[in-house]
């Protein structure tokens, strides 16, 4: 039996019929047509499919589209404002935080969650923050540098008031 699902992705409302077994990542790529989110391992390990769902980073290969009915989703395509890249995108560019680029959308979405929770992470905290994301080019050094750079840019943009970690309950 097919189910009708509706969700907001990057501010745009999408509505489709899906089979219950449709995974969110396939819905995003094939039905919403947003192919910035990648499928890597398809086994909840590599993090290439990381998107934000209702404010939390999730591996969209391990969520059914029907579970995201009514959710607010942000994908890598939702970060730039016009031609203005998000500070994380700019920092990955500036610091050579990518080689083949396959893991990059997931890395950036995981890093976004990390910096929202901890705007001034140490190197160790950055490495733990992206522990759910694998780079097979093994370019972690520059990925970590890129996240450090983005953290500084975002802190400067936020002015002097750097917010405390948000997602503490």
């Amino acid at each position, binding site marked *: *039996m097919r*189910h009708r699902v509706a969700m907001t992705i990057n501010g745009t409302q999408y509505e489709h019929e899906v*089979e*219950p*077994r449709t*995974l969110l990542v396939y819905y995003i790529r094939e039905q919403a047509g947003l192919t910035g989110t990648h499928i890597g391992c*398809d*086994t*909840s*390990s590599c*993090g290439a499919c*990381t998107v934000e769902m209702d404010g*939390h*980073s*999730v*591996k969209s290969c*391990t*969520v*059914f589209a*029907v*579970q995201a*009915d009514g959710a607010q989703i942000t994908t890598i395509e939702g970060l730039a404002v016009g031609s203005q890249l998000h500070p994380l995108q700019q920092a990955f560019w500036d610091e050579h935080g990518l080689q083949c680029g396959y893991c990059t959308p997931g890395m950036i979405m*995981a890093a976004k*969650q*990390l910096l929202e929770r901890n705007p001034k992470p140490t190197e160790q905290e950055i490495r*733990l*923050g992206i*522990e*759910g*994301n694998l780079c097979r080019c093994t370019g972690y050094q520059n990925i970590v540098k890129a996240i450090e750079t983005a953290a500084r840019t975002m802190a400067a943009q936020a002015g002097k008031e750097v917010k405390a970690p948000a*997602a*503490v*309950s």
Partner: protein
Amino acid sequence: MIPASFDYIAVKTVPEAVAELAKHGDESKLLAGGHSLIPLMKLRLSTPSFVVDIGRVKDLNYIRRTDGHIAFGALTTHHDIEFSDLVKEQLPLLASAASQIGDPQVRNRGTMGGAAAHADPSGDYPTCLLTLDAEFDVVGPNGRRVIKASDFFVGTFTSALQPDEVLTEIRVPAPPAGTRGTYLKFSRRSQDWAIVAVAAQATVKDRKFQEIRIGLTSMGGTPLRASAVEAALRGKSADADTIRKAAEKAAEGTDPPQDLNGSPDYRRHLATVLTRRALEQLTAGR
């Protein structure tokens, strides 16, 4: 990887979930955060015809202090447990274990109830909940019943939950003030399951172990208590020599598995080393 076809039923209340499970019996599976069930379904190790989603049930996501206990709604995520001030202060063992499950994305979705019901012998919560003598609130067609942790984990991937029952709350006794806890997990890569892990909680007063609890992950078909270590420490002096001798007993009576990650002997060795390190950590400066 695509799961086998199934029909999806989203429920809003626990009684609705119980009714759907009763209707579809063995053909149905309960879905919470989905981080145990969905991977199994993708591997087609689990092929339910009906998936009953309790993810939208309100009031199953909370951490609260009750009379002498800390109560967790079954849908409380690992992330919420990792970052809860109440858990960090009262049950540091659980906060420590939660912070080591999977990775941040997994911890955002996975739930304590789901992980407990999954009863994976290499899972982190089952060992902690056994170690802490938790109790489980379960609702079925005949109403509510309470299952003790020592009766809950029956076998490998098997809990005492019946197919038509829903786990709603997990309660953990609040330990005395000043109790410390830690979860030491040994794995080759950060997201991996434990090759062996040790859960430890100790109340030390006047350099003596007043209360001591030690649990073992991945040392058998179910989570285990290291009873011989507990007995060797209860009421005894919290000194290095006592700890070292007690930790040597960590693998007593266990039958650890053989797999690609390690042999039974290697696991027995790890259990003694991790137990010693956990005890040293809990008694440092006391």
